[in-house]
């Protein structure tokens, strides 16, 4: 049951999560938007000496009981939405800014606000329509320079004329 819950914890991992760094001294190099699955053991966990069963099982290559195979993972904290690793000399503002950015990318606060009260079908449709409009206006704003109809008509003929001049089909006046 413990193993099942541990496996459920892995599968329930939602959104982006940064992979744990190989050494604790360089967490700032870990990409925030990495979608790699976290390793089962994020860090070395020392088991309490009273639970000698678990300690011996974790050291032995083949556990006696299959459910004890993941005894180390029992101290795993469980699923999370986002995670950032904090550097030793990282200033407070940088930590907060990075965490806020990770949370915003995962969309946690907006999701919380949405789920706070019940949304009727009409409200859901209205929200989706507004989100679609916002997305369309944003993409239109960004791609306006490339696909502007007015700029396009003027630019195209000029390019074609340049190509014709460079052609070497007619030489010595022969057609």
């Amino acid at each position, binding site marked *: 049951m413990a193993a099942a819950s541990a496996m459920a914890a892995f599968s329930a991992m*939602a959104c982006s999560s940064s992979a744990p760094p190989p050494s*604790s001294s360089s*967490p700032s190099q870990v990409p925030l938007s990495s979608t790699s699955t976290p390793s089962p053991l994020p*860090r070395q*966990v020392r088991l309490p000496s009273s639970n000698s069963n678990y300690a011996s099982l974790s050291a032995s290559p083949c556990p006696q009981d299959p459910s004890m195979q993941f005894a180390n993972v029992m*101290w795993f*904290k*469980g*699923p*999370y*939405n*986002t*995670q*950032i*690793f*904090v550097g*030793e000399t990282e*200033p*407070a*503002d940088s*930590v*907060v800014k990075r*965490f*806020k950015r*990770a*949370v915003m990318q*995962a969309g*946690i*606060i907006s*999701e*919380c*606000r949405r*789920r*706070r*009260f*019940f*949304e009727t079908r009409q409200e859901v449709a209205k929200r989706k329509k507004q989100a679609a409009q916002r997305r369309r206006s944003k993409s239109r704003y960004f791609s306006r320079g490339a696909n502007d109809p007015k700029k396009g008509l003027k630019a195209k003929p000029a390019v074609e004329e340049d190509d014709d001049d460079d052609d070497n089909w007619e030489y010595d006046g022969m057609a």
Partner: protein
Amino acid sequence: MLNNSNKIRSRKGKRNVQKGVIHIQASFNNTIITVTDVRGQVILWCSAGACGFKGTRKSTPFAAQAAAETAIRASIDRGMKQVEVMMNGPGPGRDTALRAIRRSGIVIIFVRDVTPMPYNGCRPPRKRRV
């Protein structure tokens, strides 16, 4: 009948834990900071309400900062050196509490957001008509 005058009171002594977890529950109305050990057993807790704020003043970032500072000071007294931060909830005290923890000088290993998200589970309460 046992004479209870000489009864030894089992007093919970101060547990010295070097590595722990700080859970910050930032709800809309309050911010609760709980310091636990790695296994999750609570060592101490502090909240905006416990710091003397009441009502709407509890749900301010400043109150969260005060609660975080109080909790951190007490945990450093107990020998806490490294912490992991678990953030819960969408409240106003999220960032200021984290900033206060970072500024206190305690080593933070990672900061996680563990806000529980349903996979479309229970139906939430109806919309408020204010």
